[in-house]
């Protein structure tokens, strides 16, 4: 697909993908987790990964985000110092990416939040991890972000264990986006929620994606999620990508129904 080479903030960037994946594969013993996955993700683009349960979506996402070591392939990320294969990167470098340029929203908010730390502390952690040392500023940013994910300011000193599932998920999103990551991974972000809560979260996500010009990879088995959020779609089956293209095209003219 055609891409402009102007990024969201208007600065001109060399035309290149943000993430370039080649021949990625991961097995669990003899079982295939995912295989032969290749694609490019361009800045400002949202890629949806869909497929039935067990088709390899989570495996692929974990390999991309460096949570799981793939058996083969490349995951080249356009770092601030140019393109680098994150698979062969040292662990310190990869973990540093994980707390700066990358963000990961887990399906279960308990996996992505510190349940014993207040909402403000949860949002502030990433700021402090990259060196923020002014309590007032950290708190102001946390408040701002709680507002953006529609959590009342007076809940800032409450722990997530006192929040509903939908609030926890919104808090997890705030915690991830507060440092302005360049790439966001999401695994079934609306997965465990009631239908009405899902709709509100989707709405919120769509707003944030538009407003921040986020680049994101969203794994889901819910077609409503991708229809609303994804520019482009990848369909997985048995660990393989069986189809990819623009969301509308894939959804309206499916080859692998």
């Amino acid at each position, binding site marked *: 697909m055609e891409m402009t080479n102007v990024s969201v903030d208007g600065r001109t960037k060399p035309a290149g993908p943000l993430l370039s994946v080649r021949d990625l594969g991961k097995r*669990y*013993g*003899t*079982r295939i987790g995912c295989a032969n996955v290749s694609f490019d993700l361009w800045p400002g683009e949202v890629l949806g990964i869909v497929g039935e349960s067990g088709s390899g979506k989570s495996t692929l996402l974990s390999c991309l985000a460096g949570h799981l070591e793939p058996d083969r392939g490349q995951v080249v990320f356009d770092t601030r110092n140019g393109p680098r294969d994150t698979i062969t990167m040292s662990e310190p470098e990869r973990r540093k990416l994980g707390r700066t340029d990358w963000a990961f929203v887990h399906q279960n908010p308990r996996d992505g939040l510190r349940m014993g730390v207040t909402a403000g502390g949860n949002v502030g952690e990433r700021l402090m991890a990259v060196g923020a040392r002014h309590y007032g500023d950290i708190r102001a940013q946390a408040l701002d972000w709680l507002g953006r994910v529609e959590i009342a300011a007076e809940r800032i000193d409450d722990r997530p264990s006192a929040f509903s599932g939908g609030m926890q998920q919104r808090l997890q999103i705030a915690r991830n986006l507060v440092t302005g990551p360049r790439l966001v991974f999401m695994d079934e972000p609306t997965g465990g929620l009631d239908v009405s809560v899902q709709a509100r979260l989707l709405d919120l996500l769509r707003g944030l994606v538009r407003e921040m010009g986020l680049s994101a990879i969203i794994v889901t088995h819910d077609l409503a999620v991708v229809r609303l959020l994804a520019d482009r779609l990848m369909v997985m089956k048995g660990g393989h990508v069986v189809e990819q293209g623009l969301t509308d095209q894939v959804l309206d003219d499916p080859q692998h129904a």
Partner: protein
Amino acid sequence: MYVAVKGGERAIDNAHAFLAEDRRGDPQVAELSVAQIREQLRLAVNRVMAEGSLFDPDLAALAIKQARGDLIEAVFLIRAYRTTLPRLGASNPVDTAQMAVVRRVSATFKDLPGGQVLGPTFDYTHRLLDFKLAADGQVPPAPTAPVSAEKVPHVTEFLNRDGLIEAEPQSDAVPPDLTREPMELPTSRALRLQAITRGDEGFILSMAYSTQRGYGRTHAFVGELRIGAVAVEMDIPELGFSVEIGEIELSECETVNQFKGSKTEPPQFTRGYGLVFGQSERKAIAMSLVDRALRWKELGEDNIGAPAQDEEFVLMHADNIQATGFLEHIKLPHYVDFQAELELVRRLRADAATMQEAAK
């Protein structure tokens, strides 16, 4: 005028004198000899040797006497003594297949070469207080059997011959020494076994019990439990051959664990292993269960989050000398830290009061 509390030194000396007197108890009652403890409190001696990691029944008996029967304190005395001993060398691995067994039971086969030998066991005794022992302990000699020349092969060998049980990889690698190298996690099985065999019997027992109740079930059968003496041999470089330097009593337990296979292993039986100084049968069985539970990773099993599957949790908390020291240290003075906390609480309360005042 205020004078700070002094005389820590005299207080300590007096406390020690008091302790010595209390240890002796009523002088009208005959004093216990180390030999009496060694012979008549054998299982206590065994436990102290096992957790003290030193096979010396006389020293263990002395430690029990000195510790007034507090076995953890006795283990501590043995450990502190052991650590000062020079390392002259390492023995060859003992061969438990050559054990002169006094007890040997298998729960998996009714009969087997070498037979089932009950030996001196509490099993099948009725747990009724025996008031005869309060009067005098004269017992008629027990019946004896002629020493059998029959070999007593390991039960697991029968299964091994048929390929039904996992093969135990042979290795001549020098095992790590827990008492000479800091423990680094993750560990190896050899190091885990070392830590468990000297771990607290109560802790290991509870961990093993928790696996039986479903926190990391391993479906264990006691393939074999054997207790008896084995020869300890050492290579003497000057001689060019090994010589027997003594004999120690050991309890060995091998469990046979049902195993349905995993991603990496075909269905077969697997092993848990326990080896403990002296007749320490409960500990040997418990050890083999905990060993098996900790092997989940190498066997490709699921970690279900059971405490007994958690190597760091088990190994970091099994040692009763570490545990009791840290536990008891909280009775040492902490008044500097307490003072700091006191100031903090006072300040926080003052701040809160000011804020309440301002809010009025």
